[in-house]
């Protein structure tokens, strides 16, 4: 068994697994399970990236997708307690039609991929060059922080904007009366006394007396 066949087999495994997980993402009923399937996709794609000698991107994908984005999804589901609510009908009426169109589109992609791709000129970053830089990470760093420094910095602006936007969007909650857990103990006690019409002279004076 040559190493080429071995690598092809490994690719086949990762590719198949990621496609299967991807199908699970859109097929499973329970969103939590969907999110976990997405994690499976990301992991197997990381394997694909390692196969392509893009180790940094493999790790970055796991850190960002698995470590941040999908966790965020899970958090949202748990905060909203979605899992139990949406048990009615999961698929849209247009599903059969959409699947047909999707299949046609996929076939078109394959036709285009198989026959018409004209490979452009080879770029400057040959494997020898990458090795000369000290590996994938260093090579990527060279490209990212030399040639594409400005876009990289602009991307950080995008992230900042997204953070601010997310906070602004998620904060605007309808006004509700505060629940007791959000108050300090003494404040809460004062309210209780108020309700019970206890005269102020009969109330304990300080937080120590209440035991706050």
């Amino acid at each position: 068994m040559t190493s080429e066949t071995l690598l092809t087999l490994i690719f086949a495994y990762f590719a198949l697994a990621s496609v299967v997980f991807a199908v699970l993402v859109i097929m499973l009923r329970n969103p939590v399970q969907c999110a976990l399937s997405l994690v499976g996709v990301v992991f197997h794609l990381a394997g694909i990236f390692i196969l392509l000698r893009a180790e940094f991107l493999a790790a970055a994908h796991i850190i960002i997708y698995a470590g941040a984005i999908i966790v965020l999804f899970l958090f949202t589901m748990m905060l909203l307690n979605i899992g139990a609510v949406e048990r009615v009908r999961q698929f849209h009426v247009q599903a059969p039609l959409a699947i047909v169109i999707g299949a046609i589109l996929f076939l078109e992609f394959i036709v285009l991929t198989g026959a018409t791709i004209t490979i452009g000129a080879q770029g400057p970053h040959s494997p020898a060059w990458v090795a000369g830089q000290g590996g994938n990470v260093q090579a990527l760093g060279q490209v990212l922080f030399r040639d594409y420094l400005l876009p990289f910095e602009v991307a950080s602006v995008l992230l900042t904007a997204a953070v601010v936007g997310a906070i602004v969007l998620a904060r605007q909650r309808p006004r509700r009366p505060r629940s007791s857990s959000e108050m300090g103990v003494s404040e809460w006690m004062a309210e209780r006394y108020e309700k019970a019409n206890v005269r102020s002279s009969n109330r304990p004076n300080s937080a120590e007396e209440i035991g706050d």
Partner: protein
Amino acid sequence: MIIPALEYYLVLGAALFIIGLLGVLVRRNLLIVFMSIELILLGANVTFVGFAVALDNMLGQAFVIFSLTVAAAEAAVGLAIIVALSRHRDTLNVDEINTLKG
């Protein structure tokens, strides 16, 4: 050289892309629609890296970093919208979210 040939990676990317697209089209749960969008981005990433390696050009890999940034930003804002929406409407069903006015 790239093993197996570039076409395999492109087909994989296309497959993920189409699956994500179908997810957007057929699912009624907004959260899963969002996950499908992540799938689309992942498919694009595979294509990027495949081309980057096949063409010996690091730009493809650098671009994936930006794609990741976009994915993270999109997830943050999108989920914030979902949270605000579900507080407001008590549903995540896409079919019921069909007015522009809150």
